[in-house]
């Protein structure tokens, strides 16, 4: 959709000579670099092992990527606003386990589709609840986000263990089978995740909601002085983060056919890693969903690709650490240069 009136174009071209360009090229540069890194990695792993290029392998890459995306996007909103959410991983676990308990109860009594929809609803509600608790602790009790979400991280992970008794809850083979159906390299589940990703991308970059998120992360005093209700906005961001995390709980239930209390164990750090690789500054005010998606893609391809070049999976965490170090190092370097 473009604006019709012609002065827009002329004014923009008249008032945005080279200076306006340097900024947009800088931003695109970063995304271009990430994309090039991703492509290079893709062909590197493929050149080491041709099986890497098979449709089945690429499809499984997409699935692993989809498992990360929503958590990383949730974290992007939070980090852009200047906060941090450590509880996304444990929210995945608690939502998945509680959703599985409810579905377990109705399995066999209602059809598969209503059952999964019910599970999705339960997971969403659990996620909303955890997000609301975070929002309450941060905006009403005035805790810093790190501490508030550390509380829900610990309590959520613990409660998931209590409810599940430490083991997996439920056994839904039909869900597993459905999870591998789809179109070309995409499973239906991945397509759903990507659809949500597109919606959140539009919200962050093209709507007033997204604009306020950036403004608060950039300078919360200025945002407040401009009349923005920053407490309400921050609260809504944590609720959104909880909702997305809850939905990821359902994603994992469908993939493994049960709710496991351990699913979210490493998810927090992976989500934050994707965001950092994607170029979002942990001090708030900058970032993009597209960058985060590329961060997820890079993290996924490296951890999956290592297997193809015969690196034992035990090295995964070390390699992830190295990638974060490179990404954060580049960011610090850029930051130091732009501040001069």
């Amino acid at each position, binding site marked *: 959709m473009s604006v019709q009136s012609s002065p827009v174009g002329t004014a923009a071209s008249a008032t945005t000579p080279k200076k306006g360009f340097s900024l947009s090229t800088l931003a695109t540069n970063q995304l271009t670099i990430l994309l090039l890194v991703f492509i290079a990695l893709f062909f590197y792993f493929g050149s080491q092992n041709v099986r890497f290029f098979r449709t089945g392998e690429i499809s499984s890459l997409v699935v692993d990527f989809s498992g990360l995306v929503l958590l990383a996007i949730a974290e992007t909103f939070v980090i852009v606003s200047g906060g941090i959410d450590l509880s996304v991983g444990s929210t995945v676990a608690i939502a998945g386990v509680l959703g599985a308990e409810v579905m377990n109860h109705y399995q066999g009594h209602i059809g598969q589709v209503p059952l999964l929809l019910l599970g999705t609803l339960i997971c969403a509600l659990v996620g909303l609840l955890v997000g609301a608790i975070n929002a309450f602790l941060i905006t009403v009790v005035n805790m810093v986000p790190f501490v508030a979400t550390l509380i829900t991280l610990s309590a959520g992970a613990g409660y998931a263990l209590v409810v599940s008794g430490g083991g997996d809850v439920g056994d839904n083979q039909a869900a597993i089978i459905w999870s591998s159906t789809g179109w070309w390299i995409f499973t239906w589940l991945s397509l759903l995740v990507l659809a949500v990703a597109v919606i959140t991308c539009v919200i962050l970059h093209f709507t007033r909601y997204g604009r306020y998120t950036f403004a608060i992360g950039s300078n919360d005093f200025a945002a407040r002085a401009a009349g923005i209700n920053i407490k309400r906005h921050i609260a809504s961001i944590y609720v959104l983060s909880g909702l997305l995390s809850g939905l990821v709980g359902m994603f994992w239930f469908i993939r493994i056919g049960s709710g496991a209390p351990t699913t979210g164990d490493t998810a927090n750090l992976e989500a934050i890693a994707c965001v950092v690789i994607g170029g979002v500054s942990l001090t708030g*005010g900058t970032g993009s969903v597209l960058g985060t998606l590329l961060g997820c893609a890079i993290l996924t391809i490296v951890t999956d690709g290592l297997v193809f070049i015969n690196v034992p999976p035990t090295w995964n965490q070390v390699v992830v650490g190295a990638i974060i170090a490179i990404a954060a190092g580049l960011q610090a370097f850029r930051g130091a240069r732009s501040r001069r």
Partner: protein
Amino acid sequence: MSNAPLLELRNISKSYGSVQALTDVSFKAHAGEVIGLVGDNGAGKSTLIKVISGVHAPDSGELLVNGEARHWKSPHDSMEAGIETLYQDSGLAPHLTIGANIFLGRELLRRGPLGKLGFLDQRRMERQALEELDKVGISVPAGRKTVSDLSGGQRQAVAIGRAVMWAKNVIILDEPTNHLGARQSQEVLNVIRAAREQGLCVLFISHTLPHVLEVCDRIVVLRLGSIVRDDPTSTYTVESLLGTITGLTK
């Protein structure tokens, strides 16, 4: 209503814990008047403007706009009443573009259904931002530049432009000439004069006394949270003003 002052404070007091920041502050400000607000560090200038702009609520006292008693629950309320504030050094979001900053909290939405969903009309904001800044005599590079890419003087210009552009009654400028060179300072003073021509009331807070003496119609001196002198500018000299601020002369 026309002879009621645009802004009136009656016996405003405010304390932070055991620190008494303002004690019984009263003054009137009329349309088309530029009032200098001066005082040493800790005299209560910042607290006073935060009370007027709704960042802090006073402990006691009344605030009247056009003769009507008003209570601000948030800065949003004072903005609605036509009071704009330029805060010292912290009024802009550095990661956002000039256009985004000018329209922060007042975003223009797209026409049609997308606008109802909260979609921003980015280009219209950037274009209007430049036009409006131009009207108040401020020229900046492209509206889509981020504020962090601007020089200190340009940032200040954008911040002042935003305040002047949106103010309908009162405009509060906290140290607007800070960090600015001589020529840029003169431009700021010209913007203040232009605002007066438009019938706005300007509260000008500054440590640079020659600027205050040059542009203000009246100067209010605060010391330790109270107003110690409130007289027309012609009755002050740099020396007498300095003496009043420091409390060395009566």
